[in-house]
């Protein structure tokens, strides 16, 4: 019966006038193409971020030794291949900036919000396709501006991805001139792009759901992306405002963050983290959403506690607004304030617990199929938990005292961002690959990539907890000058080797990704036997998605439903004899 549904719903792009290559693939307003554009660009930035990380690891593992291939770097960065202190700080700063703003954020939001929201809601496209296109080009522009800062005099920022003032506000103190301005400009442009994208997603989710796609029939991925968009629309303007003030401090001689003239150093931190913490949830919520879909699919079982999963997302997003101070416990912030921030931060463990245990509940008594997305999704659950739990140490203010700004934090960062967001992406990319390119990624290589990544990832980042407890600070060029850090240098070396291995095995992914574009095996219409609306379309989905706006008959997780008969899944678009067609809502007036 499903196949019948497929035939009737699938469209062949017949009535669409053939478009030129440029209109179709470059200046496209089709949400799917825009998503794919985002995919390629941000994967490239992910690669850049990774390359920067490798140099960081070289320096931390083998301080003062000339870096292989470091000769190609200009003397101002690496004298005779030996990384210079200022360049090291720039590496760290740009690594964080690229990974957060230009790799993970666009990968999760730019790619999958764009690609999935209309497909999973049964909409023809985004509410504002052109704003959507603008959003992509602005993001690319921002990325290029940020990259450019490597090639200007004095190079890119030297104040960490957090750009704490007054260091970042005073060129005479940081030694960075143009680079700092470019950072601010790039972030303002990126913010604009994100706001454009986000208001698009919000409007689409609210106004463009196909008949029958009620709020509580939306897949968790869409819920997560929707809430993420709300965070984005409200958080990024704050960063923009802050970045603009920082820019003016640098170029106009204003004094927002410069205490010498009455400005306030902590103001920057408050503004940055008021954006920053919602930002980190922007980086995890979509991952959680897509993982929920994939785990349900892999377990052939409805998601455990759908409603509480939705409310957990909302709860995390809400709490995310009142915890930013946990980054400032040691900053001299009013200690009473610290106490309240600690409590709110700890409370985030509660909705997170709901999510983690509900994922377990979903796998419980399931019929687990370990396709590559499922493997990575399971990796996500187990690794994000570690990252989240290490967050509890830092959330407890007294314990944060010794570990703040040490490698322990760095470990946390990577357990949530790599073990969380990136594993979710390694799950999502092969999962929706057929929908994007009409071909499957290679299963064997995928599994190998997962296994090796999982191992080397843990070997790389877990020891960071220990050297962090040992007291190794973040962003230091050469740990070995401290006597109390010398003994643990061997561990640093070990981490570095693991990191190089980790980077190397990513080649498997790159190869698999690129090779499958041409030679991957053709994808059947519904390769994962999934319930989502997108699988009612041929692969790749045609421009405009559906011929007729489809109807939605049930929730997204009806796996192994008794109604499904011999099959173990029951798609949202399949009409059973017992189903009645939903009534479309009347068109709002005004146009």
């Amino acid at each position: 019966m499903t196949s019948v549904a497929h035939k009737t719903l699938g469209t062949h792009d017949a009535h669409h006038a053939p478009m030129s290559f440029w209109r179709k693939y470059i200046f496209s307003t089709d949400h799917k193409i825009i998503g794919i554009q985002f995919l390629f660009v941000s994967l490239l930035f992910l690669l850049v971020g990774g390359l920067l990380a490798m140099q960081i690891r070289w320096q931390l593992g083998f301080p003062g030794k000339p870096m292989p291939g470091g000769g190609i770097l200009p003397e101002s960065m690496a004298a005779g291949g030996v990384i210079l202190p200022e360049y090291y700080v720039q590496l760290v700063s740009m690594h964080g900036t690229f990974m957060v703003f230009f790799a993970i954020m666009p990968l999760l939001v730019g790619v999958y919000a764009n690609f999935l929201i209309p497909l999973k809601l049964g909409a023809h496209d985004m509410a504002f396709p052109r704003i959507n296109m603008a959003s992509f080009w602005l993001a690319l522009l921002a990325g290029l501006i940020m990259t450019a800062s490597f090639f200007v005099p004095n190079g890119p920022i030297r104040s960490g991805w957090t750009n704490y003032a007054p260091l970042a506000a005073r060129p005479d103190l940081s030694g960075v001139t143009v680079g700092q301005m470019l950072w601010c400009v790039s972030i303002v442009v990126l913010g604009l792009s994100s706001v454009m994208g986000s208001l698009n997603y919000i409007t689409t989710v609210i106004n463009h759901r196909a008949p029958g796609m009620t709020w509580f029939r939306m897949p968790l991925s869409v819920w997560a992306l929707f809430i993420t968009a709300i965070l984005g629309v409200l958080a990024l303007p704050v960063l923009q405002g802050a970045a603009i003030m920082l820019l003016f401090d640098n170029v106009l001689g204003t004094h927002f963050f410069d205490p010498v003239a009455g400005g306030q150093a902590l103001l920057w931190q408050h503004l940055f983290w008021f954006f920053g913490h919602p930002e980190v949830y922007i980086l995890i919520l979509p991952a959680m959403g897509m993982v929920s879909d994939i785990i349900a699919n892999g377990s052939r079982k409805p998601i455990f506690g759908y409603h509480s999963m939705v409310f957990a997302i909302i709860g995390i997003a809400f709490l995310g607004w009142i915890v930013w101070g946990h980054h400032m416990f040691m900053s001299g912030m009013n200690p009473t304030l610290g106490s309240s921030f600690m409590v709110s931060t700890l409370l985030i463990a509660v909705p997170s617990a709901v999510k983690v245990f509900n994922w377990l509940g979903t796998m419980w008594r399931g019929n687990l199929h370990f396709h590559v997305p499922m493997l990575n999704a399971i990796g996500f659950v187990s690794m994000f938990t570690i990252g989240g739990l290490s967050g509890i140490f830092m959330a407890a203010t007294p314990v944060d005292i010794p570990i703040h700004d040490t490698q322990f934090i760095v470990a946390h960062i990577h357990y949530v961002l790599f073990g969380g967001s990136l594993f979710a992406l390694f799950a999502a990319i092969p999962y929706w690959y057929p929908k994007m390119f009409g071909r499957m990624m290679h299963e064997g290589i995928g599994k190998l990539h997962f296994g090796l990544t999982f191992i080397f990832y843990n070997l790389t980042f877990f020891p960071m907890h220990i050297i962090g407890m040992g007291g190794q600070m973040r962003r230091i060029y050469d740990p070995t000058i401290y006597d109390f850090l010398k003994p643990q240098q061997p561990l640093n070396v070990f981490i570095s080797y693991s990191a190089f291995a980790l980077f190397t095995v990513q080649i498997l992914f790159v190869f698999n990704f690129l090779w499958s574009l041409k030679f991957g095996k053709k994808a059947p219409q519904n390769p994962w036997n999934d319930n989502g609306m997108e699988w009612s379309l041929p692969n790749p989905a045609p421009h405009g998605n559906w011929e007729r706006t489809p109807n939605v008959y049930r929730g997204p997780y009806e796996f192994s439903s008794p109604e499904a008969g011999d099959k173990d899944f029951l798609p949202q678009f399949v009409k059973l004899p017992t189903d009645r067609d939903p009534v479309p809502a009347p068109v709002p007036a005004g146009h």
Partner: protein
Amino acid sequence: MRWWLPDAGSTFAGPIDTMFLAILIITGIALVLVEVGVVTFVIRYRARPGRKAFYTHGSTRAEVIWTAIPAVTMVALGLVSNHYWVLIKDRKSVPPNAYHIGVHAKQFEWQITYPGPDGKLGTADDFTVRNQLHVPVNEPVAAELSSEDVIHSFFVPEWRLKQDAVPGMHIIAWFQATKTGEFELGCAELCGMGHYKMRARVFVHTPEEFKAWVTQQAAGGGGSE
């Protein structure tokens, strides 16, 4: 090679390390629960021909349980943490009898000012030492942190003490060393390219030694370094 926090060197180390251990246990339990769950399910419920998954949309009872337990633990943890937090960081907690020293941070060095024989800061007999922190053991010391240029952070791992020095702010961080000997003071907040080498040596003396040192320094002997 140490696998734990550095050896305790101040009165803060006790409670903080205990808290650390407590959280390690709590989170450890949570972690084991999750990971064991994952592994067992992966093995037990792997797809086998002819099996069908158990069709359920969840169980409110289970969810209430795993919402309530973390909630309770976290609130409890918050209360305990807050007790020590106030003890360590709150302004009112600085012992009245504390020995006040001035710690002035600038790119990329620590300038430590001692009250001199009269025991009062801001008087004529104060003297300043570069990148050397001398304190008496078992005596509360209050470091009055200030910064010349950018944000730095006063960090002595053995004392479990970290506090940013922020330009334009006057922050007091107090502590009481419990172990004599030589330690290191590091800067824990990125403050520029020299951040990594912004390091000072820390000497914890017996009271007598310390007095001797102070008088000798005040007499102009040694000066800085």
